[in-house]
């Protein structure tokens, strides 16, 4: 930590401060086919400071934040802190307390953190050993392998640090037949490489490319059950997570407070949402959150009924939920069906969207369909085009899921989810 900065913070008349210092060593490789387009390295340090100032009567607490560059002189750093103090004095939010040391987690022992070189080498090995064929292959890919060190301190005495890997790979897959070529896009985030899962997913994607070549324009328009069996489903469950946030509740966007049955009268499954401090190879595994609060396993929604909320310190304090935190990983469960049962009867299984979205405020669901399987009368047609839309308030009334789970980086969710009565707009 920058001692000069800490000294300045301690000697200025703040009513609190937080410093987050992140050092990143990153390696990046960009490939066209399997030829290296460019390579990049990053060696950076970012120090973010938040300064707090109480109102004269103590009823309000203002906060202002900014980055102090590692090249900043003492004069520049002092000028920034004075500016933050002034800005914080303008911000009139109700008072709340910063995280206290007694609440903070003991620093987690750093395990073996692979270097960016090791992570990148693992990614390279996966990409060079995929089951490519003359008709299904890799168009291009981008590898991002980072090693990060994060150190958080606040004026109350919290002092925690961690080191962790953070990776991403973007892959574009081509498939071709009779002069026609299609592409599928994938973007995976994780801690380190996760070679086995990545290889399996990309192998499935190559097979999916074959199906997309056979797809015909989506023929139907109207209400249909829609089955989600890929990462698009994360957006559905993020809606649950956002509704449970104290920020959304305090600002009257959500009413998912303790005791509320959010699936009252619903015909489908009753879902459970919990935080997990660690998920296998998640990029969000951490012992403490961005404000120094310890992260733990806790259930927020149990069988459709809210048990607790989570969120940033400020809003949680206002709601009287003072022992909470901002989780990085979430586990959603509660599905009671098998994947096969969820695919029964007439339904559209949507496996590829251009950009599937669920609005956390309105609950609106929308996405252009790039690949789907339309099951009707015992037959299955491969379809593409058109869109799926609806609203989560309605969707919750009849939403079912598999007991089997699948993990997408920091989300473990049911592997298959089915919602009755979404609007499917055809492409013809």
């Amino acid at each position, binding site marked *: 930590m920058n001692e000069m900065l800490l000294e300045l913070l301690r000697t200025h008349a703040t009513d609190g401060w937080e410093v987050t210092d992140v050092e990143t060593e990153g390696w990046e490789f960009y490939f066209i086919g399997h030829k290296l387009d*460019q390579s990049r390295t990053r060696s950076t340090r970012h120090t973010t400071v938040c300064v707090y100032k109480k109102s004269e009567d103590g009823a309000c607490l203002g906060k202002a*934040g900014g980055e102090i560059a590692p090249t900043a002189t003492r004069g520049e750093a002092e000028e920034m802190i004075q500016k933050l103090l002034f800005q914080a004095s303008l911000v009139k939010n109700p008072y709340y307390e910063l995280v206290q040391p007694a609440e903070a987690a003991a620093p987690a022992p750093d395990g073996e953190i692979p270097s960016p070189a090791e992570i990148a080498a693992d990614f390279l090995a996966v990409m*060079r050993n995929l089951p490519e064929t003359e008709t299904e292959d890799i168009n291009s890919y981008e590898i991002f392998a980072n090693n990060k060190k994060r150190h958080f301190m606040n004026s109350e005495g919290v002092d925690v640090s961690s080191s962790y890997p953070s990776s991403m790979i973007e892959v574009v897959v081509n498939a071709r037949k009779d002069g026609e070529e299609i592409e599928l896009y994938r973007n995976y985030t994780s801690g380190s490489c996760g070679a086995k899962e990545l290889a399996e997913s990309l192998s499935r994607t190559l097979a999916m490319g074959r199906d997309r070549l056979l797809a015909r324009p989506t023929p139907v328009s109207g209400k249909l059950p829609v089955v989600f069996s890929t990462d698009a489903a994360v957006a559905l469950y993020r809606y649950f997570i956002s509704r449970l946030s104290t920020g959304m509740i305090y600002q009257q966007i959500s009413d998912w407070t303790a005791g509320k049955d959010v699936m009252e009268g619903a015909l489908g499954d009753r879902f459970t949402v919990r935080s997990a401090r660690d998920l296998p190879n998640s990029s969000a595994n951490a012992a403490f959150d961005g404000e120094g609060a310890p992260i733990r396993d806790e259930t927020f929604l149990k069988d459709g009924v809210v048990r607790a909320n989570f969120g940033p310190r400020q809003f949680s304090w206002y709601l009287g939920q003072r022992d909470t935190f901002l989780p990085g990983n979430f586990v959603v469960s509660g599905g009671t069906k098998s994947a096969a049962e969820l695919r029964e009867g007439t339904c559209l299984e949507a496996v590829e969207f251009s950009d599937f979205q669920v609005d956390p405020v309105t609950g609106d669901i929308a996405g252009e369909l790039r690949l789907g399987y339309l099951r009707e009368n015992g037959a299955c047609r491969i379809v593409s*085009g058109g869109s799926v839309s609806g609203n989560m308030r309605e969707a919750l009334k009849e939403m079912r899921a598999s007991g089997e789970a699948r993990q997408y980086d920091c989300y473990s969710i049911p592997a298959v989810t089915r919602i009755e009565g979404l609007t499917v707009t055809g492409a013809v």
Partner: protein
Amino acid sequence: MKAEFSSYLNGIAPGLARLIALLDDFDYASVLAADSVGFAVRVGQKNMSVENRTMTTERGAVLRLAKDGLYTEYAFNRFDPEKPEETAAAARKAREGQLAVLAAAGAGIYETGILPDEPWTIDAAFDTEETPEGTDQASLLASLKQISDEGMTLSENLVDVRLAAQTTHISKLFLTKNRNLRQTYVYSEAVVLPIASKDGKMVMAYESLSGRVGPELFRGLSGKVAAAVKTTEELLGSDSIEPGEYDIIASPDIAGLIAHEAFGHGVEMDMFVKGRALGADYIGKRVGSDLVTMHEGALCATNVTTYAFDDEGTPAGDVVEIDRGILKTGICDALSALRLGTVPTGNGKRENFEHKVYTRMTNTIFDSGESTLEEMIASISFGYLLEGSQSGMEDPKHWGIQCIVERGYEIRDGKLTGKVVAPVVMTGYVPDLLGSISMLSRDRGVFGSGGCGKGYKEWVKVADGGPYLKAKARLG
């Protein structure tokens, strides 16, 4: 007044020039250094915040080096101008380490020529009335709170009226052996976001402002609140649309969204290099009706991404992508231009100094036409006037398009009926959509309050727009 160039960058410029000289054994060496400052304030009924950070604030630099056909980059933000040899050594070491891993993996290289380095010196400082550094933030916060309070009186259904205002003072320095480029400008953006609820239904609307101007822009926010609140009332009373193909009129912001997703991303020529864009096969061919002319470039409008040179030191441009329905050319970053044997168009952009350059949009805009909005509405027997751009997604490989639109106003027998549908998902095949454009209004708007990703990452500022345009589209 003219925006003032960063004193920090002026201070390290000699050290960066020495750094370039120390790397003279490379076939090409450049450095882009940025020192951009700004702030964002958010005010609502329940909370307010101030951050000295926007999407484009940064301080750092990136070296680009080429040797034996391979380009490598080294991004850093702890540069000591008295010790450039340390940074040069670190960049060399990083490159060598990466080459060793690549060699062990047996990876080949996509060989690329040497970027041109003709002498060019520019010191561009653009006009601004105010700057982020000189803003009276106490008055700004007070005025935003007053606007929020007054907005809350406009409807009993309002949960909150939020306002966000942000402004950034950009300074960038680009150096090679022969180039010494400096530019500085201020851009600002603001939005009013009322949230309303009724009978369990929650809606949110917005009205925005943007421009390559200073924080004086924020004075226009008060005039936007009533329209935004009116939209929330319309959304609360809206129905779902019956899926199908309709005659539509896209408002200027939706026209901009179509321009951006259809033939903005569709002709980013780094996608041509990878064989990821159908546009490469359609140069010189018809992709829209005779009415469709589309420009792209930092110089074809003045908005949030209007600059003098891009992040590769290429002069800003104004490209006619589509001329009366015929696809003429795309936009191109410098490395892709080398690979394709064409010229760069000033569209090489980075999210910030830590990110790679890609071909990216700046201002993407349909030309205007000869009709009026009233004539366009009168020409439709059943269709929708679409307003409120929410998001879009490109699909250059297949020319699909997804535009999520906030609301549609029903038109029957040439008149608006007052019925509103929301939200609306517009999808289709780009040439069909552009080919169906049959009327364009005389006026046009340009909007720069959003950001643009490449796939799902690499966020940069862009602006887009056009006139009202009449077309056929599939809505759901």
